[in-house]
């Protein structure tokens, strides 16, 4: 019996030794070019007409093409599925001419009918982002002129149209493939959550939720062929694990590191830091319905009391950019001239003029989520604000709350003072400026801020098709708002990612995405 046990033990040990190579993941094979990217959170869905989360948008961006492509460098729109377009003199009729060679991954041609189907699917499904399309397009607005020509007729001129059409929500899907996977007339809603039917450079190969999303090169891609064969997004929620995996070479890009980890790794050789200012501003929102903030001088005092430089350099580790208005650097109408510096003497004078020479006490609500993209606890920023405002006698009591519980009281105007954030959902200023200036919009109403001139200027900018004129209008709107001071704009964070040195062409573009067809691994 004893001998049998010894023999069995020896066999087991030998078996394990023999199997060791398998632990490393198999022997040498032909090497496809694979980019391995660690992401901190999983996508929620990969359906372009349903996705609103950053990771889902990043995947869908590389799988689904749109009529036009946003160019962040020039803040304009370039041809994509549409090789050209023209707009009627009154700004109502938009005619798009499609690229003839465009093909879906199935081999089916991308036709005007497919584009119409996709836009209407986006509207009809009534999913989270549907409103972006339905606010300017309805079923009757989209007409197929011929196989290669699509016409959109608007009720009023609408400048953000191209920005919306460049967004993932306007992604073009293959109607024939979807028809094959329809369940009870759901327009492929169930199937498209984790499959793809696009014409982009990549296709969804598989998605194991909370584990990995695998994209493969679309062999029938009609445009510039991607250099990568496969892209694997690994869901690694812990930033330390991402850092360790990057250092060991088990991933090529880490998307969600903390600033300290980025600095530590960059100090070693073999890594490249990629950064891009975000589009989502953080700000202090002052409700004009509450006594201290009814006074314009108080609001201005808050604006000039903040030590912006200290906040960005020390608290945010220089991974942020100051903004003086709602518009971030990548948006049309951004105006760096509106940024102010801390001026305690001026602030004290303003407080005296307002009738608050000894200051006042106020609560400041803020969301519990870490500072976007940086993982820095929001209380670090809140405490800095508290300390800056204490210098002018404003005694702030910071109150941290989950966004779920804070959203309703804030939206209904019950919060006098809050630190908040809000970003555009497509690359046009209209949406975010409307919510922070148009007196009819809930975002503005919650602060009881009313300025008819601002509301009129926003409407004018929305209807103007002249980018130069829009820039001037948005600058003017932001200048008026800065003077009115319902919002004290603070900063936008930087999207920072770290890649190994052998990764080429990985360029961040606003809205937290990347064009993977440009990327190569050498």
């Amino acid at each position, binding site marked *: 019996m004893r001998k049998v046990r010894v023999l069995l033990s020896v066999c087991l040990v030998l078996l394990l030794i023999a199997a*060791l190579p398998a632990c490393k993941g198999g022997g040498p094979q032909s090497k496809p070019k694979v980019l391995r990217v660690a992401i901190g959170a999983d996508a*929620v869905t990969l359906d372009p007409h349903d996705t609103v989360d950053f990771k889902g948008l990043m995947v869908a961006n590389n799988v689904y093409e749109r009529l036009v492509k946003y160019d962040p460098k020039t803040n304009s729109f370039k041809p994509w599925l549409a090789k050209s377009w023209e707009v009627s003199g009154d700004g109502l009729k938009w005619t798009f001419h499609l690229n003839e060679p465009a093909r879906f991954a199935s081999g089916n041609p991308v036709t005007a009918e497919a584009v119409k189907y996709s836009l209407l699917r986006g509207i009809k499904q009534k999913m989270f982002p549907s409103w972006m399309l339905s606010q300017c397009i309805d079923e009757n607005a989209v007409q197929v002129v011929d196989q290669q020509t699509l016409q959109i007729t608007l009720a009023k001129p609408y400048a953000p149209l191209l920005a919306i059409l460049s967004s993932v929500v306007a992604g073009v899907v293959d109607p024939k493939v979807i028809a094959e996977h329809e369940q009870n007339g759901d327009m492929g809603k169930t199937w498209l959550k984790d499959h793809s039917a696009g014409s982009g450079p990549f296709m969804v190969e598989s998605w194991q939720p909370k584990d990995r999303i695998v994209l493969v090169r679309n062999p029938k891609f009609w445009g510039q062929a991607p250099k990568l064969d496969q892209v694997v997004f690994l*869901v690694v929620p812990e930033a330390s694990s991402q850092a360790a995996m990057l250092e060991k070479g088990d991933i090529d890009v880490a998307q969600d590191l903390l600033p300290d980890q980025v600095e530590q790794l960059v100090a070693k050789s073999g890594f490249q830091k990629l950064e891009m200012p975000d589009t989502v501003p953080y700000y202090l929102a002052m409700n004009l319905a509450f006594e201290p903030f009814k006074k314009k001088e108080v609001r201005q005092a808050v604006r000039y009391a903040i030590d912006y430089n200290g906040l960005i350099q020390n608290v945010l580790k220089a991974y942020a950019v100051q903004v003086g208005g709602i518009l971030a650097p990548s948006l049309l109408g951004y105006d760096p001239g509106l940024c102010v510096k801390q001026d305690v003497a001026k602030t004290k004078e303003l407080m005296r003029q307002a009738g608050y020479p000894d200051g006042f006490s106020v609560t400041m609500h803020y969301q519990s989520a870490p500072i976007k993209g940086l993982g820095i606890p929001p209380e670090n920023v809140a405490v800095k604000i508290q300390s800056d405002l204490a210098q002018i006698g404003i005694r702030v009591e910071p109150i941290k709350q989950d966004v779920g519980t804070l959203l309703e009281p804030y939206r209904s105007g019950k919060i006098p003072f809050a630190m908040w954030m809000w970003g555009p959902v497509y690359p046009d200023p209209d949406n975010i400026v409307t919510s922070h200036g148009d007196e009819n919009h809930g975002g503005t109403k919650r602060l009881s801020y009313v300025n008819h001139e601002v509301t009129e200027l926003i409407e004018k900018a929305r209807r103007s098709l002249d980018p130069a004129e829009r820039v001037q209008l948005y600058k003017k709107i932001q200048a008026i708002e800065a003077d009115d001071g319902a919002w004290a704009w603070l900063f936008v964070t930087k999207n920072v990612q770290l890649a190994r040195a052998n990764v080429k062409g990985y360029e961040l573009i606003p809205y937290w995405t990347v064009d993977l067809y440009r990327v190569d691994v050498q």
Partner: protein
Amino acid sequence: MAGYLVRRILALVPVLIGITLMMFVLSRVVPVDPARLYAGDAAPEEVVQALRAKMGLDKPLWQQYLLYVEGLLRGDLGTSLQTGRPVAAEIARYFPATVELATVAGFLTIVLGIPAGVISAVKRDSVFDHVTRVLALGGVCTPIFWLGLLLILVFYGKLGVFPAWGRLDLAVSPPRHLTGLYLVDSVLTGRFDAFVNASWHLLLPGFALAYGGAGQILRLARSSMLEVLGEDYVRTARAKGLSERFVIYRHALRNALLPTLTMLGIIYGSLLGGAVLTETIFSWPGLGRYAVGAMVAFDFPAMMGFALVAALAYSLVNVLVDLLYSVCDPRISYR
């Protein structure tokens, strides 16, 4: 025995009804509007209202609850507000990863905790006893997230021995889905490479999860053994001339195991509800992460589905532990 089992399982019904009711009330009294949360602050009000109706949140509370219970009776745990997928299907997807990790952790807890506890008791006040007691105390006191990160740093970062992420290497494809347990599926489908690789991936998170429990088990096994070793029947057994090994393993251990078994049941039952920190640190696609995601997103159906499954797993494990009592101690019988 069969009658007892049926009674115990029937007793679960009021427990589960209570859980659904409690979860339902708790989730609805939270001052949160999930529709607004999902649609986003930027979405127009009419969009949010439509979404609220689609989610069924516009109906009276009692009606929402009855609809939920009606669905439960049909085996429908509802649809996730966040993903739009059936909650039952989502839980079925994440649960096997948690079961596998919990089972390995439970196994390691037993392997590390019980023998060390027994030897500690037998060799009371020896160097071994002192060392294991310190280690056990360390296990009980060490925060799991810290231990997990330390393990990753040393065994992955420095030594490169174990992987730190997920259930399988990228280069190893998962075995054909039969049970969702990679170890079982790889054996059933003859995927030896997947079996070894999955085992390798299980070791670090399994150990991180087991260490604390093993510490508790060790301390409990040691104290139970010390108590039993002082009993008259042990002295009698020794007086009969039985070998020390026989006395310890046949007479003392079986009696000392009962409280340890209870604790093991509690530990394993809790692990089946998902080990959030371990699953997060080791990027383990399990139920714990699913539950946290659901809670953060106020995904009511997903939260309730998770609570039901976790409660059910916990209860069933405890029924199993009760049954095991009779195996350890023949004097215990169930009618």
